[in-house]
């Protein structure tokens, strides 16, 4: 009964989305206030219907309703409650429902937090989002219905993939989807602007907080995914340039370019076409990512079970949405040249360079991800493009971006001089180089790459620190500095923290792969590990061999670590649960391999790692997100537009 209710709710949602989508957009085009008025309540009704559907699926999981095929495929009565809930999005159909719920949640947010926007703009934005929802609802109802029933109800389900039975599943997909889907909002704003015919600074000010909010969610979502891979895979890797990872990184790169481009359009009314194009591209990359993950065209550890019918549908959807927007862009892009003037040395130029570098980096990642497919489609054979390519291409493009980041935040709008900038920045540069070249010596053998990474990080941190200091010292009332300025510095410092993390880990991580019997010790990075025993421990749906490993430094016992090897009842592949000890400056990581027989009694293959500063990678992501949040919450985005201004802009239909 409940699954049918969920299914019915989706069908209703399809009609509601189609109605409010068409009426809101057409209403906006024709200036019909009665149709435009449907946008907000329509979005809210859509959210309610989608939430009901989601709740029904969750109910089916929590009550172990194995008559629902999807529940049988991804759950089991012995699965712990929290994973039974998270299993709702553990497979293709359910994760699509999550996608949809996120889309409707963003629509709900736009409908609630847009009082200061002209109604005609809001109705267009919600209308476009509603039409996107129509696409996803059709996709679900035609090819991927999570509520399909089984004629023969099995006694129990096939269990959730053991790799997914982890807190990571509870947080990473929702956050990631919030970001992925969130890019639809600036996209909708861009389409609304193209439909409107007016591309101006006001539009940029309205879209900016939404673009930033989506970017924040994507930053946290990707960071979480990376951290999850790090502790669950058992050998300390955290980024593999896997096609699905790249699929999430592409909208992030373009999203970063977008929020910077919006800054210029908002402040100076420049680059309007380019900003619109970035907003379209960011969401297009989200949709492309959905296609790559679910169609089976690329091999990936993250790919969902595939079905060619699904691939065709998503491709059609992609063609319609992106093709439509790009056609609209070609027809409606502003042909009026922006009036603002700026010189070669100015913040505008530097932000343009930022955009060039970020979009080129994104293009490089896209090229590398799709190249195997292109070569295969041209019948030239099969090849692989992996981490060596991406690192060789991505790093050289991003290094100048990191360098110019500081100059860009210093430079004035319109015009600045090389002399002025050098006067302020040369001391910072010198100190950064000195610190960057000296610091590696404290951690280990000197390496040019580590020195480069640390120099860039210090450059960014000191550049921001000096600016913060000046801002506080020079302004009479620094409390009145817009919070977005502090946000910018926090986010930039976040990038520096991130760079420190990856530089130090790549430069100085050490590992040992050994055969350990009870009583054996192994040392790495100054830490000593002693295996004191292995015992068997049952879990709710698995049986584990748990190791007791004493961690000591300089002879002092710090703690006991418990790496595990789990045999889930539902799977033949054993799962490693690494034991990690985390402090601010390093992670110490123990991973249990296979049991080894022979020689003198049983022993185990054990891997121990010392990873300096690895948590800084994810701390950096948090700082970036925090900075973004500070920027998005700036008062000027919530200021109500003066009544007279509303009259003027509202009429532009």
């Amino acid at each position, binding site marked *: 009964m409940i699954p049918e209710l969920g299914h019915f709710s989706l069908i209703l949602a399809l009609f509601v989305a189609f109605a409010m989508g068409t009426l809101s957009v057409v209403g906006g085009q024709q200036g019909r206030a009665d149709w435009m008025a449907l946008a907000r309540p329509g979005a809210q009704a859509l959210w309610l219907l989608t939430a009901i559907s989601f709740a029904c699926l969750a109910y089916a999981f929590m009550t172990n309703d194995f008559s629902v095929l999807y529940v049988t495929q991804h759950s089991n009565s012995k699965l712990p409650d929290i994973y039974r809930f998270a299993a709702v999005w553990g497979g293709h159909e359910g994760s699509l429902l999550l996608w949809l719920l996120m889309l409707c949640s963003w629509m709900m947010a736009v409908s609630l937090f847009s009082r200061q926007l002209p109604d005609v703009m809001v109705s267009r934005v919600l209308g476009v989002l509603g039409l996107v929802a129509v696409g996803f609802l059709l996709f679900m109802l035609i090819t991927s219905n999570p509520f399909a029933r089984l004629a023969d109800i099995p006694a129990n389900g096939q269990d959730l993939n053991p790799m997914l039975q982890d807190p990571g599943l509870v947080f990473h997909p929702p956050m990631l989807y919030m970001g992925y889907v969130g890019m639809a909002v600036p996209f909708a704003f861009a389409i609304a602007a193209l439909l409107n015919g007016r591309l101006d600074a006001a539009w940029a000010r309205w879209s900016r907080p939404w673009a930033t909010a989506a970017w924040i969610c994507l930053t946290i979502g990707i960071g979480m995914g990376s951290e999850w891979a790090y502790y669950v895979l058992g050998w300390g890797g955290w980024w593999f340039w896997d096609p699905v990872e790249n699929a999430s990184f592409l909208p992030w790169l373009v999203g970063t370019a977008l929020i910077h481009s919006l800054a210029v359009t908002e402040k100076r009314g420049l680059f309007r076409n380019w900003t619109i194009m970035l907003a379209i591209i960011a969401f297009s990359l989200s949709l492309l990512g959905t*296609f790559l993950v679910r169609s089976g065209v690329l091999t990936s550890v993250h790919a969902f079970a595939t079905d060619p019918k699904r691939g065709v549908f998503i*491709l059609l959807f992609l063609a319609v949405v992106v093709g439509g927007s790009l056609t609209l862009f070609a027809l409606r892009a502003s042909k009026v040249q922006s009036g603002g003037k700026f010189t070669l040395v100015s913040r505008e130029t530097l932000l343009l360079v930022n955009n060039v570098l970020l979009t080129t980096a994104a293009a490089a990642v896209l090229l590398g991800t799709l190249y195997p497919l292109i070569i*295969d489609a041209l019948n030239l054979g099969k090849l692989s493009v992996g981490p060596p390519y991406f690192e060789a291409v991505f790093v050289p493009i991003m290094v100048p971006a990191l360098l110019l980041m500081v100059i860009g935040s210093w430079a004035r709008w319109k015009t600045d001089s090389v002399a002025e900038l050098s006067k302020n920045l040369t001391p910072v540069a010198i100190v950064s180089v000195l610190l960057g070249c000296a610091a590696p010596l404290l951690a280990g053998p000197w390496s040019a790459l580590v020195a480069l990474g640390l120099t860039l990080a210090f450059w960014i941190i000191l550049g921001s620190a000096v600016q913060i200091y000046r801002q506080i010292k020079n302004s009479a009332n620094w409390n009145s500095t817009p919070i977005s300025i502090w946000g910018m510095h926090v986010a930039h410092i976040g990038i520096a923290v991130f760079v420190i993390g990856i530089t130090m880990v790549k430069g100085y991580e050490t590992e040992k792969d050994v055969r350990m019997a009870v009583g054996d010790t192994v040392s790495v990075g100054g830490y000593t590990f002693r295996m004191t025993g292995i015992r068997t421990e049952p879990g709710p749906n698995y049986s584990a061999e748990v190791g007791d490993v004493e961690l000591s430094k300089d002879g002092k016992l710090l703690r006991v670590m418990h790496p595990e090897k789990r045999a889930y009842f539902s799977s033949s592949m054993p799962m490693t649960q690494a034991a990690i000890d985390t402090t601010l400056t390093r992670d110490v990581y123990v991973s249990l391999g296979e049991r080894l027989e022979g020689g003198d009694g049983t022993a185990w293959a054990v891997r121990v790692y010392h990873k300096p500063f690895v948590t800084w990678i994810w701390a950096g992501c948090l700082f970036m997100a925090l900075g973004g949040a500070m920027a998005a919450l700036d008062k000027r985005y919530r200021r109500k537009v003066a009544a007279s201004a509303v009259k003027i802009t509202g009429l532009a239909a």
Partner: protein
Amino acid sequence: MKKALIPLGIFIVLVVFLAIGLTRDPHEIPSPLIGKAAPLFSAPILQTPGQAFNSKDMLGKVWLLNTWASWCVACRQEHPILVEFAKTKSLPVIGLDYKDKDAEGLKWLDHLGNPYDLSVADRDGRIGIDFGVYGVPESFLIDKAGVIRYKQIGPITEEALRDKILPLVRELQKS
């Protein structure tokens, strides 16, 4: 107007590639050995471990090398087809028992039928690696000059046998 159409143009090209991509299987790795000399090998015969088989002995004949194993589930799918095909005595079929235990392999053949003129034991998988085997079953059609002319990735199906392998066998046997 024209410049603004560039993004749309690039996108259309991308969609065409993605559409073609939907018709391909990214897991299937084509063999680089097609058209090249099959690696020569010598291995103990499964049924009579004291004796060895040398692939050089097959020069001048068109023959099929089929990798199989007692632990291989997909092999059970193609095995009946091979057994039937072997009855036609069209060409010699040599089995390569890949990473298996001799006793298990013999038991499996006993149980499910033996289509092979003989099988050799590739206990550590080295011969498989030389042939670029990455999964079981895989089959190689080798011509009179010892050149690999066709590789079947996965189980041999009726269609593959009828449409690809048999016509090629006839053609190769004529020359």
